[in-house]
């Protein structure tokens, strides 16, 4: 393959430097994202279209007509999938989300939860 000298060449140091910088940059971005204010409303999308808007201040369990086997829960100003028919259960395992940049998705069922920061809506709307 290539020789396995233990001498730390300049190229090796450069590689390590690049990796560490990217790592630290990512950590900084994550810290910034975590400090963003929590979202006030959530939107549920089916096939990319918003079908429901929810105020996160309510405490609720939600089932929507488009797919009655999927259950959402709103609690503590957060929202999550709590039950789904998909085999992977990635959506359910995502857990509760509350920041505007977070999403939870059930790919096979084409459902996504999206969060928004402004608090214009204060009741549950059906959007057709």
């Amino acid at each position, binding site marked *: 393959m290539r020789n396995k000298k233990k001498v730390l060449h300049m190229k090796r140091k450069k590689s390590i430097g690049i990796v560490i910088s990217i*790592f630290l940059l990512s950590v900084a971005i994550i810290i910034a994202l975590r400090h963003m204010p929590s979202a006030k409303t959530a939107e549920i999308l089916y096939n990319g279209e918003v079908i429901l808007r929810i105020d996160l201040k309510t405490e609720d369990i939600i089932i929507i007509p488009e797919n009655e086997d999927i259950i959402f829960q709103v609690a503590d100003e957060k929202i999550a999938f709590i039950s789904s028919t998909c085999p992977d259960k990635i959506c359910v395992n995502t857990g509760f989300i509350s920041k505007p*940049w977070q999403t939870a998705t059930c790919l*096979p069922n084409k459902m996504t939860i999206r969060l928004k920061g402004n608090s214009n809506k204060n009741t549950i709307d059906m959007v057709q």
Partner: protein
Amino acid sequence: MNKTRKLTLLGIMLSLMMVLSMVERMLPPMPFMPVQVRLGLANVISMYAVFFMSYKEALFLTVAKAVLIMMLRSPIAGVLSLSGGLLSVFVVLFLSKTNTSVIFISIASAIAHNLGQLFMTRFILGNHMILYQLPWLIIAGIILGLVTGMVLEMLLPIFHQVFIKNEKEV
């Protein structure tokens, strides 16, 4: 290496990748990371194919794995495996021509795999919010790429022995 032997060898490597992939998925998700991040041990075998066989074997393994996943899990999982795996293999192929270390290549390929899957997921979902997972996926790629690279380096002699040297050619 004759054709039959190569075919058998590829079959074994492919099964190894599938088993590793399946066993990884049975482990609980990593804390603090997006749910789909896994150890990526199948990448060890894929990288070995790039370094010690040729691009044809590596591409075959990647595509065949994606097809199997498409049949065993779901078409979406298969497409994600293909997008992550192809980007990862291309990165390894490209970097293997330059003079970078195995660990760096492993990290780059892990990040590439995550990015490939992320962009395909974004394409399938049609909304860009999922791209916010980028920093986590990069960190996961760095850490797990490091682990995978170390595993490859440790297993290298065994792989050589089992995959390549054990032939009795006339």
